[in-house]
């Protein structure tokens, strides 16, 4: 039995997991139109490779990874590209992003798949496959997996099946039904990273998932350890799960890989297996549909399916007033129901006033410290709240605001019902914007100073050129005068000679202009002019008669 460690804080909210695990996983039907957002992960967007009207096959790459942390994007089904345009996407801002609109033809024709044999493929090739299969972390942050799979000196690989947030059960159902895929992907990642230990952490409120994973693990590799961790939110947070399983605490500003630990979500592990041994890119995922609906259930959903068509499958109750994407703790209310499901979407909850009562008015902070007791990042939320509220961003950073994982434990326990996380999010994005502005200003200063230096250099170059030219003319004149007279020319003679030369030049230039002068025309030319003028006079006379 492995020794487990605890982490500070955390809460135990009602789990509400049983609602959506009663029915087996179902495949959601294809919608009339799929909206696939180009940008689905942290980092850069891939480059679009199709245009409106193009036919696409299921699994065909429609956007290729470019520089930055971009990964590929694929058509979730076969059909035609209707448009590439800005559409509302699942983001708390409600802003639009560039999407590929695909009209399915219903044939589900796959592109030719190229499975790899993981044992005979080089690590670089495997990582390229992860990137080209569009793999990102499926726990919610959507960080490109090929980057995380490139860590060196990794000792322990952790597969995260904790799924600590209430209501969400997609990882639970995935572990129950696709244990082999997860274990297969986990073993591939272990070989890729060269890790010695492989742990799968699952919260102990999911006994079926633990049993299924244990069975799959013993079949595949007896060295693989499935560990039941105590149920406490947020045990599924990366740093918290690492702490529970290994006792390691990841300090401020460091990554788990600095300590020889790497963590992947179970969904990511299953997708790795599919991408490598079957050659299938990430084009669908499990999504929990729960809350105030008649038939809560997990669905296998194509990426790009509009949320409103998905919700209709579960028959929401009449008193549903809004929909949350993600869990109740860290998710956000959808500003628009036409938004599509993306690679990071794990759950959609129908909310009603009875299930999720509207927040009561905020009361003043009484500095009771309950938030500090609950904070799993061991921060002082009441201090951060105070600084964020007064927009004292420097102090926020001093109190390690960026260690906050926005889990919402502090707001959950706050007796004054202060929406603390909203303040932290505000402060974080303000600090990021400020740093970006500062960088831009430094860049502008650099360019400005360079321009000034360049102008100065040009001025000096010009002055030097002029001086050189003047010296040359002077020398030429001196030579000329030395030829005419034996006596050296005086300063005033020099000037006179310069003026003389300039006048001669001016005369030369004006002489050809005089050729056009009437008085200097030849007799022949004057005759031509007279003829032309007579012709013109006759023409005007006839024109006047006609009118």
């Amino acid at each position, binding site marked *: 039995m492995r020794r487990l460690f605890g982490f500070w804080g955390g809460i135990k909210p009602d789990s509400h997991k049983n609602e959506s695990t009663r029915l087996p996983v179902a495949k959601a039907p294809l919608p009339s139109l799929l909206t696939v957002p180009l*940008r689905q992960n942290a980092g850069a967007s891939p480059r679009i490779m199709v245009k409106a009207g193009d036919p696409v096959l299921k699994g065909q790459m429609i956007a290729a990874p470019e520089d930055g942390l971009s990964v590929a994007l694929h058509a979730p089904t076969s059909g035609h590209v209707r448009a590439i345009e800005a559409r509302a996407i699942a983001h708390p801002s409600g802003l639009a992003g560039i999407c590929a609109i695909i009209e399915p033809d219903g044939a589900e024709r796959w592109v030719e798949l190229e499975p790899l044999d993981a044992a005979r493929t080089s690590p670089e090739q495997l990582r390229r496959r992860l990137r080209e299969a569009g793999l990102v972390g499926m726990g919610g942050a959507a960080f490109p997996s090929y980057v995380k799979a490139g860590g060196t000196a990794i000792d322990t690989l952790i597969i995260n099946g904790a799924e600590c947030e209430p209501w969400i059960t997609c990882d639970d159902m995935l572990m129950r039904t696709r244990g082999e895929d997860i274990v297969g992907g986990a073993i591939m990642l272990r070989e890729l990273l060269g890790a010695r230990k492989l742990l799968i952490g699952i919260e102990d409120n999911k006994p079926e998932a633990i049993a299924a994973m244990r069975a799959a693990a013993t079949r595949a590799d007896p060295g693989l350890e499935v560990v039941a961790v105590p149920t406490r939110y947020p045990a599924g947070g990366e740093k918290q799960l690492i702490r529970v399983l290994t006792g390691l605490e990841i300090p401020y500003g460091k990554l788990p890989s600095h300590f020889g630990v790497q963590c992947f979500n179970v969904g990511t592990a299953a997708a790795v297996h599919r991408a490598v041994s079957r050659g299938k890119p990430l084009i669908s995922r499990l999504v929990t549909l729960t809350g105030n609906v008649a038939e809560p259930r997990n669905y296998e959903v194509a990426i790009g399916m509009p949320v409103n068509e998905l919700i209709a499958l579960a028959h929401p109750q009449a008193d549903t007033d809004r929909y949350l994407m993600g869990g109740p703790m860290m998710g956000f209310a959808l500003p628009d129901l036409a938004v599509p499901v993306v690679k990071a979407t794990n759950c959609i909850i129908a909310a009603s006033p009875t299930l999720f009562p509207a927040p009561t008015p905020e009361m003043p902070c009484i500095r009771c410290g309950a938030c500090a007791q609950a904070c799993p990042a061991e921060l002082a939320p009441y201090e951060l709240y105070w600084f964020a509220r007064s927009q004292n961003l420097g102090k926020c950073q001093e109190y390690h605001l960026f260690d906050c994982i926005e889990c919402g434990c502090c707001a959950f326990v706050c007796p004054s019902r202060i929406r603390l996380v*909203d303040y932290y999010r*505000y402060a974080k994005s*303000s600090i990021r914007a400020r740093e970006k502005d500062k960088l*831009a*200003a430094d860049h*502008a*200063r650099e360019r400005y100073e*360079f321009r000034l230096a360049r102008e100065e250099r040009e001025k000096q170059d010009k002055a030097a050129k002029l001086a050189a030219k003047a010296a040359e003319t002077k020398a030429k004149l001196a030579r000329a005068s030395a030829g005419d007279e034996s006596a050296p020319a005086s300063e005033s003679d020099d000037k006179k000679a310069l003026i003389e030369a300039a006048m001669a030049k001016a005369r030369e230039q004006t002489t050809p202009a005089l050729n056009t002068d009437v008085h200097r025309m030849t007799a022949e030319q004057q005759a031509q002019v007279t003829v032309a003028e007579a012709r013109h006079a006759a023409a005007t006379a006839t024109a006047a008669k006609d009118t």
Partner: protein
Amino acid sequence: MITALLVMALGAVLLGAALGYAAVKFRVEGDPLVEKIDGILPQTQCGQCGYPGCRPYAQAIANGDADINCCPPGGEDGIRKLADLLGREFKPLSGEHGVEKPKSVAVIDENVCIGCTLCLQACPVDAIVGAAKQMHTVIAPQCTGCELCVAPCPVDCIAMVPIAESMDSWKWKYPVIEIRKAA
């Protein structure tokens, strides 16, 4: 009496020499205060303050020639930071130097541009590319929105377009509680 005077004089000479040496040896290049003020200014180099660039304005503030509320692109935030740095009282933006506007970039109407290069010469950060009798265009990420290129354009083909909010620039808003009518 004489000895005492001599001792004091000798001491003064020695200490003076030490101070003089230190002043030369540990001389600080440039004015650190000017650097700090320049760091707060937005580096648009727009000249709205009446000085030919951000650095000259920083110099003027440090010398006490200019007030801290003459920079419209820096806005109230900038004035607040300057007030904090210099230990002065905050004052609202002075109206004679302009008003705070949303961040914008210059956009050249490329159908109208005649390729006169006047805007190229006006741009303080070399954010416009082009050549004589060739179409000019603005490198948007480098544009500071100083508007200095707008006036010299003989065909009025440069417009200042406010930067729209994008996924990258979107920020969480300051939490406010909606006041709703009770029932």
